[in-house]
C-alpha cells in the first residue's frame, strides 16, 4: 500500500470518518506542526473524471472542518511514511507560513479571454529585449542593478491584467492576495478572500462586469489551491 496525500492542514483538527478516492479511510500524520491528510491506496489514482471530482470533493470536505488548508497536487503519492516525513520536514517552515496566510480564507477564480503577452515570453523575445536593454544601460557601475530592476518590471507587467481594471474597485477590500496565470489565450486570476465573502464577491464581480461590459467567468469558492505554494 502506498500513501496518497490529499492536503496539509494546521494542527489539532482531526479528520474523522472521511473517505478518499478509493473509498479508503483517511488519517492525519503530524509533521512539525503541520498535519498531512493521507489515505492508504494500492496504486496512484488515475486522472479520470470520477477520481478528479472525488478528490476535489474530499478536499472541500476537509476544508469545511479546518480554518487553514493547503490542497496537495492530485496524484501525490509516497511509497512510505519516512519519505513523506523527510519531504515535509524540509518544507515545514514554508508550509506553516502558507497555512497562516490562507487561514479563514477561500479562493475565487475569474477567467477572461485575453491575448496580452505573458511575462514568461519566449526566450527569443526576452533575449532581444535584454540585448536592447544592455545597449541602453548608461552607468556601468549599476548595470547589474538595472538589469534586475528591468526584470522586476517585466514580472510586474506580467501580473497585470488590464482587462480587469474596471472590476478591481468593487472587490478591492475583499481581495487579500492574488495569483495570475496566462495560458492559451486565457487569463486566470485567483483571489484569496475571507470565507464568508464568497457570495458578496461573486455578486460584486458580476455587477461590475455587467456595468463595464467586461466578459468574464467567475467561479468558487474553492480551497486555496492557487495559494498553496509561494513561488
Amino acid at each position, binding site marked *: 500500500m502506498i500513501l496518497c496525500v490529499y492536503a496539509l492542514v494546521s494542527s489539532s483538527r482531526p479528520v474523522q470518518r472521511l473517505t478518499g478516492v478509493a473509498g479508503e479511510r483517511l488519517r492525519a500524520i503530524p509533521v512539525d506542526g503541520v498535519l498531512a491528510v493521507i489515505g492508504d491506496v494500492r496504486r496512484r489514482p488515475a486522472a479520470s473524471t470520477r477520481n*478528479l471530482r472525488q478528490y476535489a*470533493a474530499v478536499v472541500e470536505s476537509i476544508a469545511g472542518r479546518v480554518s487553514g488548508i493547503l*490542497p496537495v497536487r492530485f496524484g501525490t503519492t509516497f511509497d512510505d511514511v519516512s519519505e513523506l516525513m523527510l519531504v515535509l520536514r524540509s518544507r515545514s517552515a514554508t508550509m506553516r507560513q502558507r497555512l497562516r496566510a490562507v487561514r479563514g480564507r477561500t479562493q475565487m477564480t475569474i477567467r477572461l479571454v485575453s491575448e496580452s503577452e505573458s511575462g514568461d515570453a519566449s526566450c527569443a523575445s526576452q533575449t532581444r529585449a535584454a540585448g536592447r536593454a544592455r545597449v541602453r544601460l548608461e552607468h556601468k557601475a549599476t548595470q547589474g542593478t538595472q538589469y534586475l530592476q528591468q526584470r522586476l518590471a517585466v514580472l510586474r507587467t506580467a501580473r497585470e491584467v488590464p482587462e480587469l481594471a474596471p472590476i478591481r474597485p468593487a472587490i478591492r477590500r475583499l481581495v487579500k492576495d492574488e495569483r495570475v496565470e496566462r495560458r492559451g489565450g486565457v487569463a486566470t486570476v485567483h483571489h484569496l478572500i475571507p470565507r464568508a465573502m464568497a457570495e458578496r464577491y461573486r455578486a460584486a464581480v458580476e455587477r461590475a462586469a455587467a456595468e463595464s461590459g467586461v466578459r468574464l467567468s467567475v467561479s468558487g469558492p474553492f480551497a486555496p489551491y492557487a495559494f498553496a505554494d509561494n513561488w
Partner: protein
Amino acid sequence: MSPNRSIRPSPPKPPRRRTEADEILGPEDASLLDIVDNLLNKGVVLTGDLTIGLAQVELIYARLSLLLSAADRVLPGEHAEFMERHRARHKLRGRLRGAKPTATVRQVPRRHRSRS
C-alpha cells in the same frame, strides 16, 4: 504508476453509500475546467517524476522527492540576523536547523514499480 494517465469518462458504477463528500459536492457541480486547473496545475508540489530514454525508448523512471526552497529560509549564517527579526516579529517557535537542500532520487525500473 500507469504510464498513460489520461482523462477518461467514468464507466457506470453501481450505486454506493453516500459519503460526506457527496453531500457537499454533487457530481454535477463545479466546472471540469476548475477541477482540472486546481488539481492538476496547482496545489502543493511534493514530488516530481522524470523519465529518461534513448531513441524514443523510455529506460529509466526516476522519482524526485524535492526540497526546493529559498536559501534564506533554510540556511543559517549571514541571514541569521534577518531571521532573528523575522522570528521576533512573527513569534515563530521553530528552530532553524542547518538543513541543506536535498533531493532523493530513486531509480526504479518501471515494471517493478507496483509491488503493493
